[in-house]
């Protein structure tokens, strides 16, 4: 049997952070999948990286800038098109606290 890196509790917590509700079966499935992925990463852990600088970006690019010049934004109908709830020109969200 494979060693477990991630517990059920941790999977539940990650689901909570992502605002996703999981059924009992899905939880089992995700525990399995998460741990498979982590096992895979274990292989990378074995590589000696002592002398290697960390890579933050795979593209060999840097300093991509934009000038500080304004251009038109979206029309309001377009901007609010995907909002599930609206009130006048605002989006409407549930209370926070």
């Amino acid at each position, binding site marked *: 049997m494979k060693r477990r890196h991630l517990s059920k509790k941790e999977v539940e917590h990650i689901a909570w952070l992502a605002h996703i509700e999981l059924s009992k079966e899905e939880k089992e499935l995700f525990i399995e999948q998460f741990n498979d992925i982590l096992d895979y990463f274990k292989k990378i852990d074995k590589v000696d990286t002592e002398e290697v600088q960390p890579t933050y970006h795979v593209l060999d690019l840097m300093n991509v800038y934009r000038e500080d010049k*304004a251009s038109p934004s979206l029309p309001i109908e377009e901007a609010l098109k995907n909002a599930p709830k609206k009130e006048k020109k605002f989006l409407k969200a549930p209370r926070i606290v």
Partner: protein
Amino acid sequence: MGSAIQNRILIGLEIHTQLTSLKTKLFCSCSSDYRGKDPNMLVCPVCFGIPGALPVLNKKAVEFAVMAAIALNCKISKRMFFFRKNYYYPDMPKNFQISQYDRAGGVPLAVDGFLHIDVKRKRKKIRISRVHLEEDPGRLVHLGPIDQSPYTLVDYNRAGIALLEVVTDPDLNSPKEARIFLQKLRSILEHLEIFDGGLEGAMRCDANISIAGGTRVEVKNISSFKEVERALSFEIMRQKDLVEKGLAVERETRHWDETRRITLTLRTKEEEHDYRYFPELDLVPIVITNDFIEGVKDQMPELPEARIQRFITTYNIPQYNAEVLVSDKALADFFERCVKLYNKPKEIGNWMMSDLLRYLYENNLELPESKITPEHLVEMIRLIDDGVISGKIGKKVLPEIILTGRLPMQIIEEEGLVKVTSRETLEKIVDRVFAENPKAVEDALTDEKTVHFLVGQLMKETKGKADPQLANQIIRERLEIIKAKGRP
């Protein structure tokens, strides 16, 4: 435990300042001029994080941030990255904020800076642990207090505006020091011309506060530097009260409610601070070369410390006055514009330091919110110097100038405040005063104090408009005549 230790207060600030001189947001070309606009009209696919939309960094924002970091004596990173800070909260449409991170290999724009503040004439060093760039979240509108609002309205015009985050070490020991620090920071950023603190919500802060016998509490939502002293004082009082009762101060995040002037607990699970930061791969690394830094340095305007010195040497005004004027860029600019119009720095400084500032302070106004201009103040001082009005009348009309923006001469003419310099008019009034105060006149022949009383009565009769020198002279002449007559 000694009381000095018992009262030990440690405050660290996390300040968020919009780079208000930018014309666009941090990562997209939406206009940053969101104030007074209809909700959700300054948004685009980048603001919303729609798949396929790519953020591109505003170069000017990096220049401004580097400029601030230099002024705050920081070490600027040679290479920096952006990270995603993940959280579900309606203020960010993407469900993450592009920010910078100082762990997991992340490098903020600058670290290890400091600012000196003057507290009771003593210099105090406040360490700055980091300075970085991030996006401002959107604006949430609650119906009534945050904990009672049935739902939340969201406006994303502000989402993505460039914010400079400045984090201090817990080196501040009172709410007043926190305010002084923020004022100084504001003045520096305004002198750099990257920020206008007069704009609503442009400078906000969160604070970490602990007192001896307690634990660290975070207070969020302090919306201006005017509010910081009030919010911190409330929180310290709340914590002291708990400690005195032998109760535990809980480690938590609280929310400052500006209307009710209290801090409220925000017991949401979001407090677990599980932001799952990871590098923002839609943005490439930024390399800040020495040439770039030198280029920014060349563009840097005069900083407050240099300006204070210049005020002392050029205008010959006291150090304290120079410090107060420069503590607010608008005041210092006003002063210099006045001096250009009328080369009397000492008088201008005195009027500003005493009457003008007192009036603004008492009415909780900032100079740009008032109607007075340098032209107004200079005209008023000229009228006094030319003998048209007395200094006393000057003090009287100043509040009206500040409030209405009317010209000093206009106010003076309309309200009949011109100085009475006519000998004939004053003699008539002296006659009346003498007739009404026979006892005082008698006493005044031998008692200097009563002479002052008579002058006072005359000033009262003329509502302060009499030329004081001439009034004095006429009264003394009259008394001499009576004295001469009285002798056999």
